């Protein structure tokens, strides 16, 4: 991160979709989509199933061609080998040769790159050293994802595509992968992450793009995306009932657990005034902005 060259380059567009359209038969997978991946950032690509995330990634990787518009990868057409030498890819639902050991798969993938990590380094960096000697076909789902991560990073990528990287991982393995991702970003690697785990995007992303129906419906930092949703979450220990709270016009939702009343409201200040008026003895008051999950739900609901 302290390398001045790294800062100079930060913000440069590494991969781009420019007005792309893609149809599969009668289904429009992408519709006039503009998307940029900038140097030094972790871009989280979010969207419900069928939103067009995987198609967008496929176009950036040159695995499919747009019907209209243009895709570029590191300033060149994505199919050019020179572009591919600077990327790493971890795809979803890909089966690798089950007969090969993890270290052999890493060695094989590394042989395609001009200046790869050694097998030992790739396994160590990805936290998969204990899996190295095991046949890929004998690994659990989560371990296969870890092995694929080791393969994705073995070429010292400038741009890394991670498609649902932590599906099936236990908590410890997920933490290890997150910390490796953070370290890679720190070393100047840029990452495109597609995930259904919104807390993952919240924890890692510099920028979030939300897709729905093949279109970009929101883009910005996690805070910017969260702020597009005006609702607030209010929690307090009070004698006010959920029925009473639901009578207040600014309250969208009211629930209660053993200790707390939970409200979702469009105007937190008015709601708090109502609460204090109804129960001056209320305790444990907490007001927070909607999280990425709530913002995502609202954005995609509007787009549907």
């Amino acid at each position, binding site marked *: 991160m302290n390398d001045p060259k790294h800062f100079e380059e930060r913000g440069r567009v590494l991969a781009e979709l420019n007005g792309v359209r893609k149809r599969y038969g009668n289904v429009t997978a992408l519709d006039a989509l503009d998307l940029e991946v900038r140097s030094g950032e972790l871009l989280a690509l979010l969207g419900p199933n069928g939103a067009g995330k995987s198609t967008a990634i496929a176009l950036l990787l040159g695995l499919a061609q747009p019907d209209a518009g243009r895709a570029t990868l590191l300033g060149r057409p994505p199919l050019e080998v020179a572009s591919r030498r600077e990327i790493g*890819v971890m795809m979803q639902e*890909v089966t690798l040769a089950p007969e090969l050991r993890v270290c052999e798969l890493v060695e094989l993938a590394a042989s395609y790159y001009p200046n790869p990590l050694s097998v030992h380094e790739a396994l160590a960096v990805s936290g998969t050293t204990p899996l190295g000697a095991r046949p890929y076909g004998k690994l659990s789902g989560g371990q296969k994802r870890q092995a694929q991560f080791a393969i994705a990073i073995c070429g010292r990528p400038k741009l890394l595509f991670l498609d649902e990287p932590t599906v099936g991982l236990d908590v410890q393995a997920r933490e290890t992968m997150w910390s490796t991702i953070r370290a890679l970003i720190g070393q100047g690697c840029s990452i495109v992450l597609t995930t259904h785990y919104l807390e993952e995007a919240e924890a890692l992303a510099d920028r979030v793009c939300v897709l729905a129906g093949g279109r970009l419906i929101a883009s910005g930092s996690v805070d910017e995306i969260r702020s597009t949703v005006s609702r607030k979450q209010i929690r307090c220990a009070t004698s006010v009932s959920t029925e009473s709270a639901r009578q207040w016009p600014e309250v969208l939702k009211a629930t209660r657990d053993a200790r707390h009343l939970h409200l979702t409201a469009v105007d937190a200040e008015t709601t708090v005034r109502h609460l204090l008026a109804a129960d001056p003895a209320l305790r444990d008051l907490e007001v927070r902005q909607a999280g990425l999950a709530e913002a995502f739900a609202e954005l995609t609901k509007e787009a549907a």
Partner: protein
Amino acid sequence: MSASVFRSYVQKDLFLATPIMIGAVVCGIISIGLVHLGSVGVYAALIVMICAGASPAVFICMYSILGERKERSNLFAMSLPISTYQYVFGKLTAACIGFLVPWAVLALGAFLIFYKLPVPGGVLPAGLLFWGFTFLQFAGMLAVTMLSESEALVVAAVVVFNVSISFYIFLIMHIPAVGSHVNGRVAVWSPVVFEVFAGELLLAMLIIALLLVRLARKRDFI
């Protein structure tokens, strides 16, 4: 860099095809043993030899190509720094080596046996043409498997190509220069035999070359 990428890819595919290549050769050796069991043994040997010759083609098409596409392993390969041409050329090269090595070993073994052992050699020209046909059959199956997106079509093509063996044997037996000498003690090598065999090899190579040209232009892999 290009050569090493190409070599890596071919080696990977060959590594996965090695068991079937060895299996085909072992079946060929077993068929040689069957020849010693008299006339029934010779027929049994022929059947084992036909199966041994055809099995690498079926395995390569169904497992190495169709299986790879079903499991999306081809997308993983295409995400590596490898051009479409390198990928297709590597795939076809590995497929051809995987088929042709046992094919050549079995053919050579069979011909040596016929020349060394006291068995009637009249069937050899027909055997040569049949062997050439298996290469043509392999090229056809390879083309359908690599061009078609439909698994059902590939399976149907594999069945049709294998059933066509019977029709082909029927056909070549009606070529006078071949059929009239099949039961003879000595092989009669008419120029027609070499012309048909050369035609089979050339047609198979043409199919594979056209396949390379067509697939190297492919741009959509999903």
